[in-house]
């Protein structure tokens, strides 16, 4: 049987692939290969509607800026494990912040809700290490200079002062920036990207004075005369002023990568959040609660699975073994795909997995009933199996395609955890089709000698099986 050899190879490859995806060694053991939703592992989730001012030219740029700013703020506040996602629904943009393990949303909400302030400042000193305020000389230095140690995006600490060269008239806070964009670096000896920006007219004069005060000729270096861009009390960038800017059009060079240049540009554009954020939902689940629910659902899954396995075995005997193996195979396959595709397992997702048990059984039952019908009409087992598969193909396709359609619609219109359910449903149904048509076929052909033919029925007699 050539067909069976091909089937055998495919079944084996798929199984090995699924097992590899599931058990691929990672630091935290195999369970970490499947990503768990916040409703399971516990954590906080806050969703904001981004209200972009009407008439904005590129609303999606504004959303990108908001994203960058929030990402920076969360990083700076130590929420490095938080995820910030842009979501687009019904022509509206949303930002979703998820913080695994967080036990409340209050801190994060405060942080996100605050309107950040961008300012230019002078760098007086820098320091590489832990909190400088714990080092007596450094905190004394800050006091003496009437300056503040702020952390930089690069991890260094900078001693900065808003009053440039100590002059109150040289404070430049929350300037309006006309544009700021990454540009390709064209000068020789340099590579990557630079950021160019232009200040609004009213700030041109002040910026000119600032650059005059901090100017150092190119090629020289004065660590006490650097200009810093500070946002949300984080030093975003610190560098030398190598030209006096008279028209408000400046460049920041530093051999940036495109990503860095984009971020810096976004920070410049963002004096404050460029859009209003309206909290649409927020919530958190304590890890304790999630675990309670998972334990219960797993128990339910295992008990349900055992019941189904037993029922199929009793009702279909030899073919029941095939159905049972198919069920186990499909469960491994589903989990493998979840792990490989980095899909997130949510609570409704667990329900989807459990439902997959139902659809897998259905595919097998449809086929077995056909095979039995064929056998009853007197055909030998092997022929019946082939005919049974041929004739149930269209039924299985129709039945499963409709479920997949429902799944896709759920995925498209659903929010949050429902998407998780739709994903497991779709993967599960696709898997169950594969299992019914390929895996079960292979096993049934192999076990054909063991399958007992039911009594052949007379043409129109009334006998039961």
């Amino acid at each position, binding site marked *: 049987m050539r067909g069976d050899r091909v089937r055998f190879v495919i079944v084996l490859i798929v199984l090995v692939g699924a097992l590899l995806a599931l058990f691929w060694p990672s630091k935290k053991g195999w369970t970490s290969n499947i990503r768990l939703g916040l409703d399971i592992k516990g954590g906080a989730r806050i969703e904001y509607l981004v209200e972009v001012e009407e008439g904005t030219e590129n609303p999606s740029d504004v959303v990108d800026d908001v994203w960058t700013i929030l990402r920076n703020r969360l990083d700076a506040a130590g929420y490095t494990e938080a995820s910030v996602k842009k979501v687009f629904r019904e022509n509206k943009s949303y930002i979703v912040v998820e913080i695994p393990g967080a036990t409340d949303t209050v801190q994060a909400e405060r942080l996100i809700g605050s309107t950040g302030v961008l300012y230019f400042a002078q760098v007086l000193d820098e320091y590489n290490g832990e909190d400088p305020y714990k080092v007596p000389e450094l905190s004394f230095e800050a006091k003496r200079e009437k300056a503040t140690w702020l952390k930089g995006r690069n991890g260094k600490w900078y001693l900065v002062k808003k009053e440039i060269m100590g002059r109150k008239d040289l404070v430049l806070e929350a300037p309006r920036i006309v544009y700021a964009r990454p540009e390709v670096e064209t000068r020789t000896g340099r590579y990557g990207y630079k950021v160019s920006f232009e200040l609004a007219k009213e700030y041109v004069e002040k910026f000119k004075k600032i650059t005059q005060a901090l100017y150092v000729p190119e090629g020289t270096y004065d660590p006490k005369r650097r200009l810093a861009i500070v946002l949300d009390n984080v030093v975003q960038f610190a560098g030398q002023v190598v030209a006096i800017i008279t028209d408000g059009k400046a460049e920041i060079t530093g051999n940036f990568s495109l990503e860095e240049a984009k971020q810096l540009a976004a920070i410049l554009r963002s004096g404050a959040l460029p859009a209003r954020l309206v909290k649409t939902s927020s919530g958190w689940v304590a890890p304790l609660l999630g675990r309670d629910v998972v334990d219960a659902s797993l128990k339910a899954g295992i008990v349900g699975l055992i019941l189904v396995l037993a029922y199929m075995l009793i009702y279909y005997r030899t073919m029941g073994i095939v159905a049972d193996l198919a069920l186990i195979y499909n469960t491994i396959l589903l989990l493998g795909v979840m792990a490989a595709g980095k899909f997130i397992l949510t609570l409704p997702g667990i329900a989807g997995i459990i439902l997959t048990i139902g659809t897998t059984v259905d595919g097998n*039952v449809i086929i077995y009933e056909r095979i039995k019908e064929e056998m009853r009409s007197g055909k030998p087992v092997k022929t019946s199996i082939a005919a049974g598969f041929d004739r149930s193909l269209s039924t299985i396709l129709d039945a499963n395609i409709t479920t997949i359609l429902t799944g896709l619609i759920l995925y498209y219109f659903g929010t949050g955890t429902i998407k998780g359910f739709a994903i497991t449903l779709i993967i599960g149904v696709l898997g169950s089709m594969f299992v019914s048509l390929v895996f079960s076929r292979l096993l049934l052909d192999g076990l054909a000698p063991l399958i007992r033919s039911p009594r052949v029925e007379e043409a129109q007699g009334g006998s039961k099986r």
Partner: protein
Amino acid sequence: MRREIDFMGKSKIFITLSLILISVSLVSIFTKGFNFGVEFTGGSEIVVRFENVKITETDIRSAISQISDEFATARIVQVRSVGDPANVLKYSIVVPKTYEPDEKQRVQKELERLLPGKVVSFNEISGTAAEEIKRGTWTAILVALVVLLIYITVRFRFVFGVAAIVALIHDVLITMGFFSIFGYEINVAAVAAFLTLLGYSLNDTIVLSDRIRENMRRYRGRSMINIVNMSINQVLARTINTSLTTFFVVFVLLLFAGSAVKPFAFGMTIGTVVGTYSSLYVVSPIVVKWSK
């Protein structure tokens, strides 16, 4: 052929039964209404977990009514999953309001001061978001119905599509009726159950339609009643086996699963029963009547 059960002969009785069930459902839906989750109403749901404390709904209500007016009228429901240890009690407190961060912290502190338990979850959904979820849900259900109708019309015939949709509406109405009667919460998971139910009920209908179509080709000249009856009998074993195994799974889920999944399991449990029944007794009479 095996022993034939005359499904069509009894169709009057079953149509009557369906009509009664639908009427009861509609009455309950319109008089008692639904117990909608926060996703659909907007507001905050706070779950408080108590360990080694015996506490009742009334205790909680009298304690928290001190916080503010919303808490005096809050909806308090005990949530329980079989997996919970015996010494753990959980209550869900729903108020029709969302909070600013500082207010939220205050409410949380107040709750933990007034009650001998710990706040383990605090979910809020703004009114506009709830509206959107509601709209999205209705759209999903309508789009699903239309897409499925088109699919069946293309693959089979329009009459099968109409029969399938009637069966679906029948199933959804009765399941919703059960939700209303038993006061189960309609949350997003319950909606997922409805949509899965659509797919499931349809699954049954399609297997049957498929067989009817095949038999119509094979046995030209036989009466439609005869063909439908024969087809039902041929797929009966499959229908029963599949429904039974799915029922096992969702029923066990209903017994064991935690509160978040419970409405889903409840919907599916009712749905498998009603869905199986409708594909046998609702679809076939329509196909027979229409094809005459």
